[in-house]
């Protein structure tokens, strides 16, 4: 789990928050309501998750409930991996 978290954090920082201090991005930082994940970023993230973890994300899983924070994304990926 920690592995996924750190990989995700690194990806988000490099792709969507270049130059941002890593300590500002926490596991529960809101990603959608804060504007970090807009529609394009969401699509990029989905492609990243599918390729990196070999999981299939459904369209309705692009909502806040599933990808609203790093913690939510980790839960989503883990549930897919364990299924």
């Amino acid at each position, binding site marked *: 789990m920690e592995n996924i978290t750190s990989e995700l954090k690194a990806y988000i920082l490099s792709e969507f928050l270049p130059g941002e201090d890593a300590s500002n991005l926490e596991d529960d930082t809101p990603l959608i*309501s*804060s*504007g970090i994940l807009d529609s394009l970023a969401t*699509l990029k993230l989905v492609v990243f998750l599918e390729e990196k973890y070999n999981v299939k994300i459904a*369209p*309705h899983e*692009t909502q806040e409930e599933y990808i609203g924070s790093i913690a939510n994304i980790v839960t989503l990926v883990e549930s897919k991996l364990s299924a």
Partner: protein
Amino acid sequence: MEKATSIALQPIKWLKYIFLVVQLAFIVFIVHRYAIENNAFFTIMIFISVGFMVHYFIPIQHRMFSFGLLSMAGTAVIMGWESSLWIFSIVAVILLICRSGLKFSYKVGLILAGSGVLAVFRADIMPFYGPEAIWPILGSMLMFRLITFMYDLKHAKKIPTFGQSVAYFFMLPNVVFPLFPVVDFTNFTRSHYNGERHKIYQVGVDWITRGIIHLLIYRIVYYYMAISPSDVASPSDLMQYLSSNFLLYLRVSGLFHIIVGCLHLFGFNLQETHHLYYLSASFTDFWRRINIYWKDFMMKVFYYPIFFRLKSLGMTKAIVISTIIVFFLTLAFHSYQWFWLRGQFPIIWQDAVFWGILGCLVIINSLWELKKGKGQNLAAKVWSVKSSVIYSTKVLLTFTCICTLWSLWSAESWLGWLSMFKVLGQLTYSEIFFALAIFAGYLICGYLLQIWTRKRIAGGNYKGATDRRPYTTVCLLVLMSVMSIGEVYTKFGPDIANTIATMRAGKLSKLDTQALEKGYYEELVRVNRFNSQLWEVYMKKPAEWLQNPGADLKYYTGDFMQYELLKSTSSSTQYGLMTTNQWGMRDQEYPLTAKPNTLRIILLGASIETGWGVEDDETFEGMLESELNQLLSKGSKNTIEILNLSAPGYKPLQQLPVLEKAQKFHPNMIYYAASGREMMRAASFLQESVKNAVDIPYPGLRDIVSKANITADMDATVMEKALMPYREELLAWLYNELAIKAKNMRCKLVWFLVPGVEGGDWETTAEQSTELARQAGFEILNLHNVYQGYTVNDIALAEWDKHPNKLGHRLLMDGLFKEITGSPERYLGMKISD
């Protein structure tokens, strides 16, 4: 679970509660004083405030359901029992289908079939025996909410509760706002009391206040800034035209703020519907900031599912195709929404051009962002002069492009829109220098603002209910309340007093009033823009308003007069009989030649004089004739006949051939009834005549046409603009021609202005017309204060029809009778008694 428990245990805080109630009391007062929206909104705002006061004490587990019940009660209060029972029954059937144990595809099939049946009724393909008033509200409740509800139902881990479903579909204050944001069902239920409740309530109050401010600013734009394309005569007019069109959108953002603010009062901690959209720095940014709920709805239900299906084509292709489909659907949904609200499905080139261009711009911008990234960060941004200048310039360019695009969306014609830009050729060096100075000032202000806020305004970084103190809201509420009091705002001088008086008036602007008047006789009025308030007025208008199916009263003459009323016709309207005599007058029968000792008056007028909306014996003309004869019968052998040659829709120039026709009746007097916008209406008729290649039999008119250089192949806006400088000359020519003809007929001419049922710009233009009539030699009869002491609701036929009603006609008759009998020699050319 822990969170839910902590929320359930949120204690009652009396001070905060009282503070919220006091703010709501201010809001209700302001809504009343500034006539925000309509009377129904005032009622519902009281309803919501009282509802909130009770809701606060309801245990959390019952709050959703109680909100649903309150929303249903609100619907019943506003719509009445019959309409609300129809709405409740239809929604209940839909909910039964949604919540049944059927397979999802069967549910979708049934819902689609049911919607099809409703659409057949809405389109009047089959008669609907219930009240028509339910359609806009029912449509508003279901047209998008049902789509998102079904989508969430498909993917939900558990079926929503009955209380959630009821609360979602009836959602207060939907019953008074048919144009309603597309609230997402998941967000609606998940946001319910997901934070400290007093903070959620306070955000609600803040947003209602903000919404009211948007609406008040909108009114200033609506009344003072909005101009028509034909008014654009200089570069500054062009700027005013372009910006005012876009600024009129403040009405939508204002209403949406109020709506979502009201939902916060019942614990729905929803996000903003609009976020500083005038400060968008790119087209994608604009799409994300304006009507956020719409964007989210389209993303969730269409964009992501389409993208996921296409992503095997590659990221770029999938994004481009998905975006094109989303913008096409947005275009189609605009007409779909219009269908449910108005019963028509407009397909308009302006919509296609607007959404097409915006879609292309968003695609280009998206691909750019995909390649370069947005460049954002979490901490408060430190602005350098360079970054500030770049950002501010981007904001200004985006604003300018959107204004231009928006104006094209609102334009009547492509050529008319293009013709406005010719004024840019008139730019002088001093104007360019002035514009550059304003731009420099804007950059400096932008930089100072950015330093002051120390945070990004580019990212839409709203975080929900915040800890900020509500002092600003309280100050604004107190200020607006105090400034709504006449004794206070009149102390600030006439300019401020007039501006506030305007802000307090919830009436139609000059442009919309003109469009409304035009719409009495023309079906082609473009009220398909949510920017204009007129669509709401028309939404309330019954489809068969004053129509006589199969019995059109007009007889087309094929000459300059164009039409007259059919002879010896009687048709039934909802106001009673409309009967014409053997000469095609809405009047009693008269012989061709008057009997001895008869003073014969010819009345020249339009719809009011014809008696549009009143019965045969309720027209002011008929009543006046009868009253005058009654008076004469007491001491004179004379009688009076008033021959009413008016017809609905007549414009000033048409009165010339009418007067020529009237010669055969050998009148003694001509009474000319003028309307408020004589010059504009005269020019408009000449323009129509040229456009329709009607033969113009008057050399004077042909001369004006030639001077204005207008031809049939020209665009309407261009013609209107070309005729503008000749309007006064045109009316002066008409009045002089009428005077010459009257002199030849040995008739005396009386001119009177029939005042509008409410104040407006017609009062200013009326002064010019009066002066021209006086110069031409008319006797002027003043009816100026005839409606004094009555409100527009007392004397107008309806909100969508400002013709005087029965009382209005009675008042007009009283006014005319008083003036005529006060100076009979002047207005009748004789004494009343022998």
